[in-house]
């Protein structure tokens, strides 16, 4: 249990909760909500939007639009990617993407046509507030769910960004428990809390749609005890539409928001990393995804998200709703935070799961839940590990980080697999408690990506071997065929020459005969 054993006990409270191994109680520090009067500020689409053409696995995909083409908001740019605003395609070229290290990927650059874009916003809002239409829309959706899911390009807004349609496909039928994840346990991130405060009714409708679609037995909405306003708003909203959803208040322990930890807290079931929750009759959606589904049913595609601007160096922390593809720089400029661009360290995502940005000229995506500005610091260099075991006490995946770190650093990938590295959810708890300031999480990320690379390489090696074997076989066969052909040619020549020689023989015979016959003469 360790240094933070008390937290575990706190986790056990309440009759329905089970708790999970390890974890840490962190200060919520939600500056984005504390300092502003409005939970969410709507931002206008910036002049330029950059939409990277990458799929869920970060592979490049081909664009379905052409240069200088005019696109409408919601129009498909590529498979599963839609235009977040109305405008013109200015370029399709490699651009920087939001990433721990500056790298480029092929992207569609849109010049936003502000006038017609504002028109679309207005129309969408009108459609949304027309509550009588909801029932017809919902029944249409339940009849033909695929139409809506594909048109609106829904993906999870929790962080992994998994396409919602595939998740629902895999989960449909045999779902016992639907879990709506509103446990926003990482410090500084307040986007879900803000959303629940402002859009509770719409979220409730989205959840209700999910319940009816999956026909699950129970639906649990999990909210952390540190956000009372959101809890009140959601319970009122759920009551008002009479949804079959049980609101569960869970203790604020990082990383409750991680899917596996949340499932364990709510159901007591530990899902091994190589199994899917749907194998156990459970499916999880983020609360923001439920809201996005609500909008999609109303005909509005997923093209924006709430981002928390926070961090101790952010002068004007707040939550903003921004279009996908807006650059970090544009967002900071529009919110009066331009000063941090040169003075502070910018970070995408939370303090534990996020990463620092080298440049603010990168577009945000569905996974960007927060932008933080922190003072520039020099990290304490790592000391040798004394195997104290604090890390394994806080590890929510029940791993042995101290041993894993050794093997990760000495590139012993076989041993890492044995120690179950793949089960690591990279939550960063081990880094926080390590007395020797060892960068455990980074070494695990390194080892994971390296192992993936090695696996890919091995596949390539195997393919190369097969191709070589086929090549050799083909060369050998061709050689044999050639030899065979030469042989046949010889044979056929011989065969052709045979009758000839017979004829000659016969001719000679005849000649001899005639000579003989002539002799007596």
């Amino acid at each position, binding site marked *: 249990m360790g240094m933070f054993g008390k937290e575990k006990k706190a986790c056990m409270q309440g009759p329905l909760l089970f708790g999970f191994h390890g974890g840490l109680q962190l200060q919520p520090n939600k500056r984005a909500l504390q300092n502003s009067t409005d939970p969410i500020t709507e931002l206008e689409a910036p002049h330029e939007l950059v939409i990277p053409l990458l799929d869920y696995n970060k592979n490049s995909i081909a664009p379905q639009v052409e240069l200088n083409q005019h696109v409408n908001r919601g129009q498909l740019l590529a498979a599963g990617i839609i235009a977040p605003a109305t405008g013109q395609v200015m370029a399709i070229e490699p651009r920087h993407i939001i990433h721990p290290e500056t790298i480029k990927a092929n992207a569609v650059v849109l010049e936003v046509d502000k006038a017609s874009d504002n028109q679309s916003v207005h129309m969408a809002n009108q459609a949304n507030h027309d509550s009588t239409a909801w029932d017809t829309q919902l029944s249409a959706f339940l009849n033909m769910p695929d139409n809506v899911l594909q048109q609106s390009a829904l993906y999870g807004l929790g962080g992994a960004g998994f396409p919602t349609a595939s998740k629902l496909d895999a989960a449909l039928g045999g779902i016992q428990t639907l879990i709506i994840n509103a446990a926003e346990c990482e410090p500084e991130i307040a986007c879900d809390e803000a959303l629940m405060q402002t859009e509770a009714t719409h979220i409730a409708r989205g959840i209700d749609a999910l319940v009816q679609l999956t026909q699950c037995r129970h639906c649990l909405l999990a909210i952390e005890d540190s956000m009372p306003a959101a809890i009140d708003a959601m319970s009122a909203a759920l009551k008002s539409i009479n949804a079959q959803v049980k609101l569960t208040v869970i203790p604020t322990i990082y990383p409750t928001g991680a899917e596996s930890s949340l499932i364990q807290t709510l159901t007591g079931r530990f899902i091994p990393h190589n199994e899917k929750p749907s194998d156990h009759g459970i499916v999880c959606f983020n609360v923001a995804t439920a809201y996005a589904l609500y909008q999609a049913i109303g005909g509005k595609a997923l093209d924006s998200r709430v981002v928390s601007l926070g961090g101790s160096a952010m002068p004007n922390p707040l939550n903003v709703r921004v279009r996908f593809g807006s650059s970090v720089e544009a967002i900071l400029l529009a919110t009066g935070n331009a000063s941090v661009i040169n003075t502070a360290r910018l970070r995408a995502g939370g303090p534990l799961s996020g990463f620092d940005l080298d440049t603010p000229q990168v577009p945000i995506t569905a996974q960007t839940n927060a932008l933080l500005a922190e003072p520039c610091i020099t990290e304490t260099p790592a000391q*040798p590990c004394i195997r104290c075991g604090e890390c394994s006490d806080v590890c929510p995946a029940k791993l042995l980080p101290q041993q894993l770190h*050794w*093997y990760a*650093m*000495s590139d*012993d990938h076989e041993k890492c697999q044995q120690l179950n590295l793949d089960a690591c959810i990279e939550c960063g708890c081990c880094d926080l408690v390590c007395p020797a300031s060892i960068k455990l999480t980074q070494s695990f990320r390194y080892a994971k990506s390296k192992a993936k690379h090695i696996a890919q390489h091995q596949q390539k090696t195997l393919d190369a071997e097969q191709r070589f074997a086929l090549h050799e076989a083909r060369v050998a066969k061709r050689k044999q065929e050639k030899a065979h052909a030469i042989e046949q040619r010889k044979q056929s020549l011989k065969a052709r020459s045979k009758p000839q020689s017979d004829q000659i023989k016969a001719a000679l015979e005849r000649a001899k005969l005639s000579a003989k016959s002539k002799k007596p003469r």
Partner: protein
Amino acid sequence: MSEYALIILTTVLVNNFVLTQFLGLCPFMGVSRSLESALGMGLATTFVLTLASALSFVIDHWLLVPFNVTYLRTISFILIIAIVVQYTEIVIRKRSPLLHRVLGLYLPLITTNCAVLGVALLSARQHHSFLEAVLFGFGAAAGFTLVLVLFSMLRARLNHANVPIAFKGNAIGLITAGIMSLAFMGFSGLT
């Protein structure tokens, strides 16, 4: 019965051939690079030692002593050991070619593993009965296997340690073996 148990206990722990008598150090250092080869070597040596001590007893007791040619012990024991090793090698080669390859030269070198000859000679000198001789051989080999396995695991851990360059490899291996030997001295006088 208890004396047989004592023979095994003594040879495994108290008079461990590697760590307190310093016999058989060559394969101890040579094949402790991985757990698999250490286990393979340990099992091969166990097989050889048990069989060789039984055969040595038979030869010694019914041939050398009755004909009063005990001065031929060393040479005849070596012969027996060589036969058994050859025999073992053929079996391993057939059953596990990879292990055979990994053990490499160390497999025929069991012949010259002084622990094997030492066990046979000591057993003859201590006037063991047949069962005692077999248990003595088995115990010695079990002790050898035990420390070989422990040592191979330790070395695997040392591979990741920040050992000074001058001490890398066999040097740190021998130092570790020394400390292991120091630890095994705790068993001395165990009665």
